[in-house]
């Protein structure tokens, strides 16, 4: 069981590249440092892109859950 709780959901369903990371970069500030957000994406590129985005921007991807037709990404705001 995950030891975190997502405080907010970022719904990026239906948005292809580059919109999920563009939106994430704009909206990460809606959660506080240390909090976790849940991203909903239907873009398979997100599975590789969110960890790459987090690595470059200094945030953290805690978990990626794949469901049929939906990808859930748990992002922790680090700074």
């Amino acid at each position, binding site marked *: 069981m995950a030891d975190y709780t997502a405080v907010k959901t970022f719904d990026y369903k*239906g948005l292809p590249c*580059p919109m999920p990371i563009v939106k994430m970069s704009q909206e990460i500030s809606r959660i506080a440092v240390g909090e976790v957000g849940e991203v909903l994406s239907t873009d398979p590129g997100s599975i590789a892109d969110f960890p790459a985005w987090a690595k*470059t921007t200094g945030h953290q991807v805690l978990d990626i859950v794949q469901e049929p037709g939906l990808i859930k990404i748990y992002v922790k705001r680090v700074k």
Partner: protein
Amino acid sequence: MDVEKELSALKARVDELPGAENKLSMVVFSGDLDKQIAAMIIATGAAAMGMKVVMFFTFWATAALRDPAKKVSGKNLMGKMFGFMLPKGRNNLKLSQMHMAGAGTAMIKSLMKKKNVASMDQLYEIAAMLGIEFKICEMSMDLMEMKREEMIEYPNMEYCGVATFLANAKESAVQLFI
């Protein structure tokens, strides 16, 4: 030995190293729709990754920054010809392949819409919002007789020459030519 002094000297040298800045410098040379879409997607993606982004529009790419609603007068014959033959703005670009007298380009645009891919207009809007800088090659403008009055309104736009690109490229971690 003064460690502080050594350290600051070393830091100054590191700052001077090529590619030290978290920045993308891109030359946009092509006037093809597909290549310009790729350029805009990479640029907006880079800005989302926290990178500073500078796009240099030169040669064929310059026409994409024309505003179709703006009319200018006082061009000579060659300038008028170029003005007529070059695409009027980002929504009049053609695909590099399979343009097929407009059918291919129209098909890609309708597919992009269907699949919810950001349009050129949306990409420009996002670029402006993310603070991406546009720099336009003055020499291309002069060569093809484009006037500043016929270019689009964009918040971070200036006219420059090759030295501006090189100075930016030298300090950028990533450089691209599209």
